[in-house]
């Protein structure tokens, strides 16, 4: 078993799996049971200012996208930050942290956008024993309308300002949680870094409507005949989150800024992918909400086996390993030429590759009267759509043409690395040469 102990911005936890700030971390009862189940850390459900807590709707809070076998693929929610009194949360946090010193416990915060409010809340949480704070600049519904959450997260200047206040009034490590509801994720991350953040975490949920009730004509979840947009999360959002994490990890302005990866982490593999793209650890919400706290056991055994297989001594060996290989399109090798090939022994003759290529791609698959499907190398542009739609694993594979071989489509000999920046069709390349 590999050692999964992870130190993230100075905070040590027995594994890199933290529960994200959400219902699973809303109270002592949950968090104790989560720690017993093996979670390495938690980010407590977001706390607000002193005073009467927020109220939630009393009808359904979730909309869901199911797979055919009712597998939960994505959830959207219209829940707000904690609706329990601040003193109760603080008392519970203190009590849990006292008993679980080896686990990470971070407090998520969201208070109005003025220095006094932040100073006050930071003062109140000081003696809880918590290991750090996470600033929730992400919540896309309910709080944004009150000038908090994603209303702050969408304005880089606000992020920088609030982060500065937090660093000024607290010595705790500070994680800034980013909203994905923005066109360039690097901007808020840069702002957080300027403000002095120790790390960023992302993503919070994505603005969404999961479905529309076609009898009552309202979005789901429907509250008394009306619905509103919610925040989308779960396996469906992982690709979006991975890209945003990678963007921050490889941008020169934010490179090296610690990242806590969030969004659709369901298995060890998801976690490993986030970490390879630069996340120092991961946070999980929907997987725990779908399968219960025990789901972490598979993440632990899976990541540990993977690290053993790879010979990684610690999670640090994995973190960021894929970052150098994330590049811009223009640097991709245009002389890397592949062709689809169909393994006739594995082929079950469904014809899906043919439909995909013939109807929507490059007419590069031939179909014989006896339903034998073959690739026409002289037409194949190697888009790999046929492989993607094929129901049989490894039936269609992509063969790399070695240098020196002739590409039957272009009639040109395959040569060494060359990218768009120097391609003759690129007007910019010509300009540079002139």
């Amino acid at each position: 078993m590999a050692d999964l102990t992870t130190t993230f911005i100075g905070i040590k936890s027995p594994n890199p799996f933290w529960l994200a700030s959400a219902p699973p971390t809303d109270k002592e009862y949950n968090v104790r049971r989560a720690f017993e189940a093996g979670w390495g850390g938690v980010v407590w459900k977001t706390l607000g200012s002193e005073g009467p807590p927020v109220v939630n709707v009393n009808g359904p809070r979730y909309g869901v996208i199911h797979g055919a076998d009712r597998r939960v693929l994505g959830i959207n929610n219209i829940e707000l930050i904690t609706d329990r009194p601040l003193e109760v949360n603080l008392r519970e946090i203190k009590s849990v942290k006292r008993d679980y010193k080896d686990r990470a416990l971070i407090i998520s915060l969201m208070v109005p956008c003025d220095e006094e409010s932040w100073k006050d809340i930071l003062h109140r949480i000081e003696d809880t024993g918590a290991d750090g704070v996470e600033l929730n600049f992400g919540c896309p519904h309910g709080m944004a309308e009150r000038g908090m959450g994603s209303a702050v997260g969408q304005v880089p200047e606000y992020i920088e300002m609030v982060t500065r206040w937090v660093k000024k009034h607290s010595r705790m490590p500070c994680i800034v949680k980013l909203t994905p509801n923005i066109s360039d994720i690097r901007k808020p991350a840069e702002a957080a870094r300027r403000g002095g953040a120790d790390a960023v975490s992302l993503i919070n949920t994505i603005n969404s409507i999961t479905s529309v009730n076609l009898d009552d004509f309202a979005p789901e979840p429907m509250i008394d005949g009306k619905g509103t947009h919610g925040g989308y999360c779960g396996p469906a959002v992982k690709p979006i989150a991975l890209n945003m994490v990678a963007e921050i990890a490889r941008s020169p302005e934010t490179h090296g800024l610690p990242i806590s990866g969030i969004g659709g982490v369901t298995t060890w593999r998801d976690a490993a992918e986030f970490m390879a793209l630069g996340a120092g650890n991961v946070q999980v919400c929907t997987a725990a909400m779908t399968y219960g706290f025990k789901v972490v056991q598979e993440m632990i055994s899976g990541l540990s086996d993977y690290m053993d297989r790879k010979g990684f001594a610690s999670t640090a060996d994995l973190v960021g390993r894929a970052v150098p290989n994330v590049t811009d399109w223009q640097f991709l090798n245009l002389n890397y030429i592949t062709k689809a090939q169909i393994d006739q022994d594995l082929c079950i003759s469904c014809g899906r590759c043919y439909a995909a290529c013939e109807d929507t791609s490059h007419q590069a698959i031939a179909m014989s009267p006896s339903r034998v499907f073959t690739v026409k190398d002289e037409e194949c542009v190697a888009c790999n759509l046929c492989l993607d739609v094929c129901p049989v694993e490894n039936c269609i594979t992509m063969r790399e043409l070695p240098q020196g071989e002739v590409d039957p489509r272009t009639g040109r000999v395959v040569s060494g690395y060359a990218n768009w920046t120097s391609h003759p069709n690129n007007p910019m390349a010509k300009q540079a040469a002139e």
Partner: protein
Amino acid sequence: MTNSQLTPGIVPGRLSAEAYCTNFADIAPPLDAHEVRVAADRCYFCHDAPCVTACPTEIDIPLFIRQIATGTPEAAARTIFSQNILGGICARVCPTETLCEGACVREAAEGKPVEIARLQRHATDTLMAKNAHPFTRAAPTGKRVAVVGAGPAGLAAAHRLAMKGHDVTLLDARPKGGGLNEYGIAAYKTAGGFAQAELDWLMGIGGITLKPGLALGRDLSLAELQAGHDAVFLGLGLGGVNALRAEGEDKANVLPATDFIRELRQAADLATLPIGRDVVVIGGGMTAIDAAVQARLLGAETVTLVYRRSKASMGASTVEQDHATQNGVRIICNAAPVRLLGSGAVVEVEFAYTEAREAGLHLLPQTFRLKADQVFKAIGQTLEPVPEGIATGGGKIAITGPGRTSISGVWAGGDCAQGGDDLTVTAAAEGRDAAMDIHLYLMGA
């Protein structure tokens, strides 16, 4: 080929060489990679899952299936083996329709449970194929434990004791270890010499010395064993068989089904194994089914299984009954043997129909006869011989708690001991639990 299914009497080679191969091939071959993913995907990862409760060894089934689903079958195998070191054989022989798969929520909902056993086999096969032993021994304790019987109960106990750092001497009366895994289970459930392969792999933990051909009672006494060891575990199984108590039982070619199966399991070439043209099996449990099916698979023309009570009260599950009928075995219920006829060797068996009455089973005047070149008796096994000085109850070694016998320092588990069903997995559970109790006793906890 000189003999056929129609050749009279008891002769070998009724079938072609290929037929023996196909008949005795793996009955549930391994799932391929795609089937594994589809099967694993069906598990709901239930909370406090009913399948776990239904497994005598309480393997964390949802967890291991999730580990398979995420492409880590070795981790899945460790989850299995940490509860049941015989998870490999159990995946092949457990009557899952009455255990985990019977309890699966998808069985209740759709009549189609998650294929737990075949997934378990995928995981355990993957790890065992690497020939890697997943556990290491604790620091040596200097304690010595004798385990008598190298069947599932003894093996599970020996492994757990060795893992805890004790030195284990494992004796078995037979020339090979494995117990009924090697000498009893149907050949098509343990194809490819699995029982011995699993035994070797299990011994990979170290600290276990297997001594075959050594019988308690014959070669050494319980007192002698106790004198040389700090504790003793008895996993003797059931060596004796019940008698039919029907007239003519002593005729030639009337033999215990377990003897027939043992010979079959040890045959180097099944084509040399003689089998009757007409075979009658008496009994209603797993042994009866296995004897009947394998007699058919060896080429017997007719095989009739006769059970004295109703179909519903048969020990064999409906899945096993169906398996028998699919293989051409005729099952007759509510009939008991009254006479075996023939001069010297049996040629016919006379049965009387029965009726269950309050006073017990009643023989009706209506009778019928079945032609029989061979009669296999499968009406239950008995503890034999009973180790000297040990208390018994209901024909088995009396135990309290996790296998403690009436003699201090002596534990028992598996078929020879009271409690639980006579199943491989139950024996594995009892052996493991007794070992944990022995461990606590030895370490003075």
